[in-house]
């Protein structure tokens, strides 16, 4: 509805944003999470320590129910942690952290807004005039192949397209931190492959600090600078594997010997914990 009116505004906001440094180091120390429900105590996370450098891409892999989503929500300040400390860009996280973009497993688009307005709601909710971001939104939508679909309503799109719109919404305000909670979990294998390639491209543009939760081993290796492997509940960090592969990670990189070795290392971690059995 606002699309027509917005189109004549120049991309002032986007240009100003591009100058901002995309750095938000994260320090996580001794984070534990205990859920109490009628006489039942669940240890979701057990003393997690992790330091993430600014503009580093971290993938967190773990079996279902290991608390990796909980960890992400704790870092974002969406869940109150039982103990430990989380600092982003030097600041202790208390309550929802807002200087970030977030993508969930489901796209969480607003049914009553078209694709472009769903992207711009990020700014509206922040009290920022979305007009200055029109051009940037269209540019990002173009990068994920949604240019022609900017006026479509979410229900008119496939699952993959909706998730692309959600990723653009998470990036439109150029946050220094991008958090993704199994963003490709509900997609088919082919779409997933393409989304991974697109995500790497988008990330290489700005190199935000990125946290990516997944249970796909090769997906984690393909995307991350470091892969954090978690144990089954209570979630603990089992190993942190630095991935020394060139970017962008095209198919020859993914077919390389070293790529396979990294995947094997993660698989072995899971075998040790009985998550994967042969």
């Amino acid at each position, binding site marked *: 509805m606002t699309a027509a009116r917005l189109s004549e505004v120049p991309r002032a906001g986007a240009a100003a944003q591009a100058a901002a440094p995309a750095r938000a180091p994260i320090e996580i120390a001794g984070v534990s999470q205990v859920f109490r429900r009628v006489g039942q105590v669940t240890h979701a996370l057990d003393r997690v320590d992790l330091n993430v450098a600014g503009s580093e891409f971290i993938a967190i892999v773990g079996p279902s129910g290991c608390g990796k989503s909980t960890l992400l929500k704790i870092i974002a300040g969406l869940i109150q942690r039982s103990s430990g400390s989380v600092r982003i860009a030097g600041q202790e996280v208390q309550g929802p952290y807002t200087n*970030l973009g977030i993508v969930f497993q489901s796209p*969480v688009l607003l049914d009553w807004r078209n694709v472009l307005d769903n992207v711009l*709601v990020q700014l509206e909710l922040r009290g920022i005039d979305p007009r200055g971001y029109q051009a940037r939104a269209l540019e990002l939508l173009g990068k994920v*192949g949604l240019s022609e679909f900017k006026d*479509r309503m979410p229900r*008119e799109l496939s699952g993959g397209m909706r998730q692309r719109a959600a990723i653009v919404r998470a990036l439109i305000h150029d946050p220094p931190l991008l958090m993704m909670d199994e963003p490709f979990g509900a997609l088919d294998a082919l779409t997933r492959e393409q989304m991974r390639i697109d995500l790497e491209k988008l990330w290489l543009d700005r190199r935000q600090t990125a946290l990516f939760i997944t249970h796909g081993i090769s997906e984690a290796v393909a995307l991350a600078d470091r892969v954090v492997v978690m144990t089954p509940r209570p979630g603990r960090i089992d190993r942190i594997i630095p991935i020394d592969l060139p970017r962008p990670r095209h198919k020859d990189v993914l077919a390389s010997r070293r790529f396979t070795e990294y995947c094997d290392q993660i698989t072995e971690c899971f075998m040790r914990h009985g998550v994967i059995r042969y």
Partner: protein
Amino acid sequence: MSADIPLQPVTPPTLGAAFAGWLRKRAGVLIVFALLFLLWEYAVWIFGVKEYLLPPPSKVWVEFMKRSNTVMQGAIVTTQEIVGGYLLAVLVSIPLALAVARSRFIEESVYPVVVFLQIIPKIAIAPLFIIWLGFGFTPKLLIVFLLCFFPIVVSSVAGFKSVDPEVMDFAHTTGASGWRMFVKIRLPQALPEIFTGLKVGAALSATAAVVAEFVAADRGLGYLLQQYNGQLETPMVFAIIVLLSLIGLAVYYLVELVERLVIPWHVSQRPAGVTGI
């Protein structure tokens, strides 16, 4: 780059196109109605049914035309009661629903009382209103209000409370204030359920007005209905029943029209034909 296949596009409904579409879709229903009236007309004639038992549609029409002035004046009174009571119900119940949804205290203190009061048969209260407020417009307005109020409150509370937790998580990461969150997320998300209640209320409103007039009135369609019934003027009874149905239908469709204009993204998603005619 995307291999995704978009689903079928949804065209925004314009009024003219909507009416043409309605006519095409409902042609079958309209024909059946026409046939029923024909059958009625000739069955009465063939079997020689007495007029005061079941008058033929043509007779109903003729009698109605003779006294259309009186009847239309009654119709105006009744319509005013319906619209006034309904609007009052909307104005009171949506803010109340919002308060119930947002405040634990109000939900636990005020809402149970509202639900309890609802159990009292409203029609049984009607005579009390007459004692308190007399014969005029106000007691009818209040009875319409009472009957429409509850379905709107209940569905609006449900609407305001049914917020997708992940949408709220997303909204929290933007640091949006409560008001902005309400305008941009909570209210639009609640609207489909609010409209469900608004339609139930609209469907009840005509019944409420007639019942109120039955109890005590000196004007309105409910009053006329009783008059004609007492004099065994059955064709006029039929005429008023038809007129009342038309008013009820008009109120209902007006609400549905507003719904189409306010939440087209939801209406077009709903399977067709759910709402009947």
